[in-house]
């Protein structure tokens, strides 16, 4: 194997393993309002999310991202709470709007801060800055797209075969995500 493949696998397995359930919860909440036919919008939104946390991970060398880890652990579930609440508004349910992309991008920046201890390991000692960082981020994106793919199938089955409304799905998912993330916020209360 070439190192590229192994760094890609490292990023992929990091999301797929149970280590990153908060990531997956965010993705599921983010895509809860979309109908399966709007899958491309979901893929774009998720890619904006990856872009966001790739940026903060890649900026790990700068002190700008040296924010208190306790605060980050509070902010990450807060992004999920906010996304779930937004899903309940008419504005958040508008599938045509591009606003979700910007939400995904900016919340991605926050999620990336939770990766701060990865930066040194992936960059220091590599002959090239991107050698490990690029495939690692690509691996994360691949894993997230897989999660999206599986969720789209489940949502498709829910919508077409069971003939249920995506609105009910959204209420169920957003409610669950809200509850879980709210408890995480309280557990990680930094003040």
């Amino acid at each position, binding site marked *: 194997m*070439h190192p590229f493949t192994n760094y890609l696998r490292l990023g992929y397995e990091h999301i797929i393993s149970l280590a990153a359930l908060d990531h997956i919860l965010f993705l599921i909440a983010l895509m809860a309002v979309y109908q399966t036919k709007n899958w491309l919008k979901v893929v774009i939104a998720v890619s904006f999310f990856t872009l966001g946390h790739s940026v903060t991970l890649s900026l790990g060398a700068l002190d700008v991202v040296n924010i208190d880890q306790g605060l980050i652990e509070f902010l*990450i579930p807060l992004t999920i709470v906010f996304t779930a609440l937004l899903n309940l508004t008419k504005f958040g349910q508008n599938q045509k709007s591009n606003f979700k992309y910007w939400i995904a991008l900016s919340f991605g920046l926050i999620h990336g801060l939770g990766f701060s201890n990865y930066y040194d*390991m992936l960059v220091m000692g590599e002959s090239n800055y991107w050698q490990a960082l690029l495939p690692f981020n690509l691996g994360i994106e691949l894993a997230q797209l897989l999660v999206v793919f599986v969720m789209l199938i489940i949502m498709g089955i829910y919508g077409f075969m069971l003939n249920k409304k995506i609105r009910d799905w959204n209420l169920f998912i957003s409610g669950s995500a809200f509850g879980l993330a709210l408890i995480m916020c309280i557990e990680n209360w930094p003040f």
Partner: protein
Amino acid sequence: MGIFWIILVSLFKPAHDFHVSISQAEWENGLLKCTIRVFSEDLEMSLQKDFGADYRLETALKDERLAKYVLKHYGFRQDGQMLKGEFVGMEIENDLSFLYLQFPLENAPASLDVYNLLFFDSFEDQSNIVNVQCGAVLRSAFLSPQKNTQILEFK
């Protein structure tokens, strides 16, 4: 019901543990030189498991048990033969520690059996990546507790 929620919530952690080590080895002029980067915290914790809870990484360099520990967990086999390694030193840079090893190996190898068992007994999700450069050929092994050795071909 309460327990169900506690288990569910405890699965969602905002700060992910990243159990990884990455090492680079390069064969040149009869010597295979290796640098292993590990998280200082992981290394200290593993050493404490073997040598007692008050073991400190800062003093490990003066302790010959460190060299033995590293060489026991990391190395290469060629044609079924273990390569005899030598621990050269360690540098601690905040979160990361760099372990330096070398293995005398007269000719460029056609293939090497790589192993790196570091921290496998501490973390089920530990991944150890070992990159080996031999002339123009770069190969990489991905090791885990489920698969702790891998053969790399340099032909």
